[in-house]
């Protein structure tokens, strides 16, 4: 598999400065190895800390069935699907998987049109404020969303994308990304479905300054 690397920048919270990073147009074995060896132990450590501190976490629909082996197997099965990852400091900082084939637009004006469905987005645990305060890097979500938009354009889908947001990320997709909230999806564990029209995609790109 040929992996193309595009230079990007993240904001390092500790130093208050930018840091060069790589945007890869793939999720490779390296990202899976980082998820297993770096992300998962840190995630458990953080959750153990919260648990001991008596912090109650929202009980998400299927989270009690969480199984890291099943997740690892799911990743392995998706190695061939389009994906993006961000590397910084030699470690994977964020990952995204996309589906360019099976999903269609739901939003009224776009119904039935092709889109890039983002089936998975995740930040490294140390970049999540609720787990590590302060987090290490900012900007990962925006770069991954931009990558999804560019992928959509590449397929001539004009920037149309869709995804099911986790409850704690609804604000990011509604406000920062400016996507349309189509409400809870009873067929997808009641996670809210968000969609971005070509106009919203352009508005998002312009939000960060003329690209």
């Amino acid at each position, binding site marked *: 598999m040929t992996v193309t690397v595009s230079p990007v920048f993240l*904001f390092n919270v500790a130093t208050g400065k930018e840091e060069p990073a790589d945007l890869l147009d793939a999720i490779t074995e390296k990202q899976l190895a980082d998820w297993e060896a770096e992300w998962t132990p840190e995630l458990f450590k953080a959750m153990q800390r919260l648990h001991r501190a008596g912090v109650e976490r929202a009980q998400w629909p299927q989270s009690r069935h969480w199984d890291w082996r099943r997740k690892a197997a799911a990743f392995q099965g998706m190695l061939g699907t389009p994906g993006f990852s961000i590397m910084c400091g030699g470690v994977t900082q964020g990952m995204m998987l996309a589906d360019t084939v099976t999903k269609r637009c739901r939003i009224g004006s776009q119904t039935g049109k092709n889109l890039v469905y983002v089936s998975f987005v995740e930040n490294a645990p140390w970049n999540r404020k609720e787990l590590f305060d302060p987090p290490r890097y900012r900007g990962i979500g925006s770069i991954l969303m931009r990558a999804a938009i560019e992928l959509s354009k590449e397929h001539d889908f004009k920037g149309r994308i869709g995804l099911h947001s986790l409850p704690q990320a609804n604000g990011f997709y509604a406000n920062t990304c400016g996507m349309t909230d189509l409400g809870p999806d009873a067929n997808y564990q009641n996670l809210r479905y968000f969609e971005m029209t070509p106009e919203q995609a352009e508005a998002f790109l312009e939000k960060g300054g003329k690209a």
Partner: protein
Amino acid sequence: MKINIPKAWCLRMAQLEGDAEIGAGALAVDPVFEGETAHAEAPEETSLAFSRFVRLARRGRGLTVELLAERADVELAELLTIEEDSRYKPDLRTVYQLANYFGVQRANLLQIAGLTAPKDNHLVIESVRFAARSESVAALTAEERAALDAFVSVLSEQK
């Protein structure tokens, strides 16, 4: 697919994004921590072997529990519990750290610690043998040393 994203755009968006959560898709859902990690039930003999292995490997290196906790970067209280209670299901990260520190295959140690379903019968048999041969908790004898070395080589086997 090359994507040209200007530095100024990345930094402006990082500022707008702030510390927002970005998780999407069911695969991104976090586990719920309830004092134990999600795990399969391990046979008692492999759990016993894990507990014994940690104790003997530590003693074989002449380390106190405190020193091992420090060097392997694991919680002292959990390490004590692992050594004292073979029924205890350790934290996933702790097993990772111990596998790294003792230089054995992570997958094998996860299996005998009960965090993955037993799939290697050879490892189960060797775990039972090790548990049976390593009963003494006094000074490390030549027999214990031999038992430990033999089990380390099994745990180090590449799949």
